[in-house]
Each structure stands twice: as C-alpha cells, then as structure tokens.
C-alpha cells in the first residue's frame, strides 16, 4: 500500500534500524511501568519455579508429591497454620487433602505451565517461521497452496483438534502426555505466526537488499534464513510473547478438563481442577494456584503489550 510511495523516506528510516533498534526498544519499554512490572513478576515466577521446590525441600522436607507418613497430617491445613492451629511458616499456601504442601505443588505446576507455554511457543515459532517464510519468499502457486491450507486449518476448531489428539494418543505416561501437549499446542498455534511471518517476508522481499543478495548469488535458503528471517524478528518476538500466556491458558484449560498434565505431576490447571472440588471447605486449594496463574498471565500479557509498543511503534493505538 504505502510502501511503494513512501519508499525513499521509509528506506532512510529502515536504515537507522540495526543496533539501535534494541536500544530504542529497551528505552521505550523502560518507560512503560506496567510492562516493567510484568517483566519483574515474570522473572520472579520463573526464578521461584526454578529453584523454589528444592528450597522448600531443604527447609521443610516437603516435595510436590510427598505425602506425610503421620496419618494426622494427611488433611488439608489452611495457609500459615501448624497442625495444632497456631501460626507457622511451614505451609504458606496450606496443604491439600493428602497433606501435600500446596506451595511446592504450585511452584512445580509453574515449572510445567511455563515449560508448556515456552516450548509450545517454540514449536509454533519453528513451524510458523518455516512455513510463513517459505510461502512469502517463493510466492506464486506455492504461496497460494500453503496459505489456503493454513486457511483451512484455521477454520477447524483447534480445541477439538487438541482434545482429539490428547484423547487418542495420550495417557501412556505423565511424561509422554507432557510431550504430546507441547506438540499439540504448538501445532495449533503456528497458523497466526505463519501469516505474520509471510506478510513481513512479502514486504521485505521487494526491498533492494534482497535483490542485491540475489544478485550476488546467495542461494534462496540462505536468503530466507540470513536476510529475511532476522528482519522479521520484531513482530515475531511480540507475537511470541503474547502466544506464551495464551498457550498456558489453553494448557490449564485442558488440564482442568483432565486431558492435560496427569498426576503426580501438576500444572496450574490441574491444581485448580483438584481445588475446585473442595471449594466450599478448603478455598485455599483453588485460590492459591488460581491467583498465581492469574498474576503470571497478567504479567506476561503486560510484558507482551509493552514489547509490542516498544518494538512496533506504528501499531500503537492512539
């Protein structure tokens, strides 16, 4: 549209990209308080999930699947309460029906939820970039065929696909279930990524530096990998950071339905599913994992929005 008419100015601006793009983006990101807050919260959650479980084990002896041997302890205690009803630091989030420490389980759930979010996003990134860049660069019939296929896949309700996949192939072991989850979620979320990358590549490929690369005899695969893909990174990063929370939510939803992560592993979704059964009596069993998840998802979304504003100022509204 405007690319053709604005080429000379746009070109001059394009040229300023390079190292300063990241510095510039960082400066803009720092100004956005919510995004910085989101970033800090995400860092805390990631750190806590990574090292938290082992710290708890050192401090109290509880792990995510440790069920106390003392039968009097196999009961759900409220947060910060010792078995005798007095205040104690032992279980900041209380324990569940089996007497397991909920904090330890939430942190483990965080590990798995974040892992699902990040790895599934990676899977979708790889498929999306490969498909989108190929379609955009080759153009013509190949592009037509690939994008029609994407359109068809778009029209299939992805939740159905994931449920069918998990119901069919799932349930062998908790770990294989987890891998299936990565693949299934990645496989349904690459479609938008492919469209974004294709659009970027199509507008980039008419630029002179791509023609220049072709004129120096650079092979097509190398042009895509070294010249086109790096130039699409801005929007791709933005979309990826926004994909992470949406995939995590999807995973929680599946686990909540009992299709996702299987016991004794836990994710925020499966913890919430466990908690909701005792909501009236032991509300902390739902509130603790639910709140953690809500805060993390908010933080990721704020961060993603902030990154979009920082990396893609033209998209900013108002």
């Amino acid at each position: 549209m405007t690319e053709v008419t604005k080429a000379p100015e746009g070109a001059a601006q394009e040229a300023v990209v390079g190292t300063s793009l990241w510095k510039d983006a960082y400066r803009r990101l720092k100004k956005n308080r919510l995004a910085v807050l989101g970033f800090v919260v995400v860092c805390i959650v990631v750190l806590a999930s990574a090292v938290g479980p082992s710290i708890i084990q050192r401090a109290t002896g509880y792990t995510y699947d440790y069920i106390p041997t003392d039968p009097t302890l196999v009961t759900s205690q409220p947060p910060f309460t010792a078995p005798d009803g007095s205040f104690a630091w032992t279980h900041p989030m209380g324990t569940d029906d089996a007497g397991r420490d909920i904090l330890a389980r939430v942190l483990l759930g965080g590990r798995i939820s974040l892992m699902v979010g990040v790895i599934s996003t990676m899977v979708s990134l790889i498929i999306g970039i490969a498909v989108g860049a190929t379609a955009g660069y080759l153009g013509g019939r190949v592009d037509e065929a690939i994008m029609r296929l994407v359109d068809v896949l778009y029209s299939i309700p992805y939740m159905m696909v994931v449920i069918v996949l998990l119901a069919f192939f799932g349930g062998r072991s908790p770990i294989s279930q987890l891998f299936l989850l990565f693949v299934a979620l990645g496989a349904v979320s690459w479609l938008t990524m492919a469209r974004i990358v294709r659009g970027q590549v199509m507008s980039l490929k008419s630029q002179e530096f791509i023609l220049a690369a072709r004129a120096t005899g650079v092979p097509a695969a190398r042009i895509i990998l070294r010249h086109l893909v790096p130039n699409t990174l801005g929007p791709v990063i933005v979309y990826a950071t926004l994909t992470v929370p949406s995939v995590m939510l999807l995973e929680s939803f599946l686990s909540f339905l009992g299709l996702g992560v299987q016991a004794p592993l836990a994710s925020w979704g499966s913890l919430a599913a466990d908690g909701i059964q005792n909501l009236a009596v032991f509300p902390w069993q739902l509130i603790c994992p639910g709140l953690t998840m809500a805060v993390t998802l908010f933080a990721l979304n704020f961060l993603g929005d902030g990154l979009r504003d920082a990396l893609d100022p033209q998209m900013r509204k108002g």
Partner: protein
Amino acid sequence: MAPLLSVRDLRTWFDEEDLTAKAVDGVNFELNRGETLGIVGESGSGKSVTNLSIMRLVPSPPGRVVSGEIVFDGRDLLKLPAEEMRRIRGRRIAMIFQDPMTSLNPFMRVSQQLMEVTQLHLGHSKAEAYAHAVRMLEVVGIPDARRRVDGYPHEFSGGMRQRVMIAMALSCKPELLIADEPTTALDVTIQAQILELIKTLKQDTGASVIMITHDLGVVAGMTDRILVMYAGRVFESAPTAELFSRPSNPYTAGLLRSVPDPTDDSHAPLYQIPGLPPDVARLPPGCPFAPRCARAEAVCREHFPPWVQLTPQHHSLCHFATELFESGSIAPSTSSTATSGLENR
C-alpha cells in the same frame, strides 16, 4: 576476439491484467572485454529490465523473457540451469544498485555481508573472508576500514554505503560489472567520487562495465560506447564522442539538449522533450517516439523506423537517420522551429 557479452533480440515482457507491457522489445548489443558501455534513457525505457534480464532477476511473474539470447563468454545465460546461473551472479557478473540506503541488509554487519560473497563463491574460510572484506573496504577508500568493517549499514553515510556495495560487487573480481544508476541517489560531490572510484577499479581489474543512467553527464567521461534506449528499444548506438558530436536520432538530440549547460548565460528555460514516455503496453504502430518528436512526419506515425547503420559503430533507429547524420548535428534553432511548426499544425 569474441565479445564478452552479446545480447541478441532480447524481449522481456510483463503481463498485466489484459495487456502485455513490452518493457524490453528486441534489444541487441555487444560488449567487449574491458569495454565500458553506457545505457541511457528516460525512466521506463527498459534500461534496468535489460540488465535484470542479463542477471536473470526479472521478477517472474509478471515478467518473462520471451525471446532472445544473452551470450556471456560463449554461453547463453538464458539456457543455463538456475544453480549455475546463481554461481555466475556475484562471481562473474556483479551488480551495483541505485539506492545504497536500501541495498544493504540493515540487520547484518557490513563484514558479514562482504564475507558472504567470498565465502560463497571463492570458498574462503571465515578468517580469509574477513581479511578480504577489510582489504576490499580499503580498496574502495573507506577510512579506518579495520574498525568500520564491523559496523552496521546505518552507521555509514550514503556515499560510504555505495562504496561498500562496490566493494561487495568487486570482491570476486567479476568480469562484468553492471552499475544500475550507481550515483542517482547520491549528492553531486559524492557522485564524482563514486564515478572516479568505479573508473579506477575498472582499470585495475580489467572488468567490463555496463553503466546505466539517465544522466548523460555521468556517461560522458566514463564510457567507450553508449546505447540510447527508448520504449524498450535501442534508438541509437554509437561511440561516446560521436554520439555527443553527431547525434543521429531526434531522441538522442533531445536528451543532449536537456542537459544544463553551465556556460550558457542566456537565461532561457532549459529544453525539455515535450510529452511523457509512452506506456509500453499501448505502443502506437509507428515510431514510439513520433508523438514527441520534432522531426516526425506522416511516415513516422505509420511505419516502424528502420535500424540504420551509419558507420560500422554507429546505428540509429529513425526514418531520417542518414539525413540527421549527414547534417552533422541538429542545430538547436532548426529543431525549435520544427517544434513550433508542429504546434501550429
């Protein structure tokens, strides 16, 4: 000796909705080793498409080379397999583009872009390629090349970037260098430097050069021979000096008159060829230049002009080529009366 490059009857057409734009329609020329050829013409005359056809980089669709032969060093480039053509690009035929601001990848260091060429074509190792990149930047006169080679394109000015492009193009010592308006986007002082650089490097490497431009001033001091193109055709082809002294085509004469003359202090408005270049999808049956031509007669509008040989080196596509050639040159007064005569009619 056989010419390095010979283009025969090249036709590159672009398919539009229901028409065909004949961007290049029957172009013939030869280029000897070590020779510099200028291709001159207005925008849309087919200069760039001719050269993209040589490189086989015409965007397709909508473009396609309909017919012709491009014989480079004894082989028809149009018949080569894509992979072999790729190995020729950058290695034996290199290209410099018009706008240095957009022809470097903004995300890659200059060193990486320079290294890519020699790693691909000369099989250089990383270290060799890096050393070569620094050397090439020194050759094209970038001060402090050792430090600047690691910079990104945005850290270079337009003239410096064009030098980087030239360094990239000459990295593999190509036999043919195609410069597509290499100075159009640069300011005048830099233009002179870049032209001088191309000239020196050409002498050092012995490469043949095709210089595309719409600025006759640029080609005057650089080229051995000039092709004048209009509407996808070669209108005149002559050795540089002769083209300037005895233009034998009204179009060439018009172009020459549109060059500002700094010694002229008559304050008369600068001559301009009336009208606009034609739409190559809707060409009239006769001479494509006839509607804008001061010399045009009825025959021009009905019959396509012949390709007249005036001397062994000098050809012109015009019904009146011989007459114009004999008259020495078109005197400004005669052609302006002819213009007014046309208006009165």
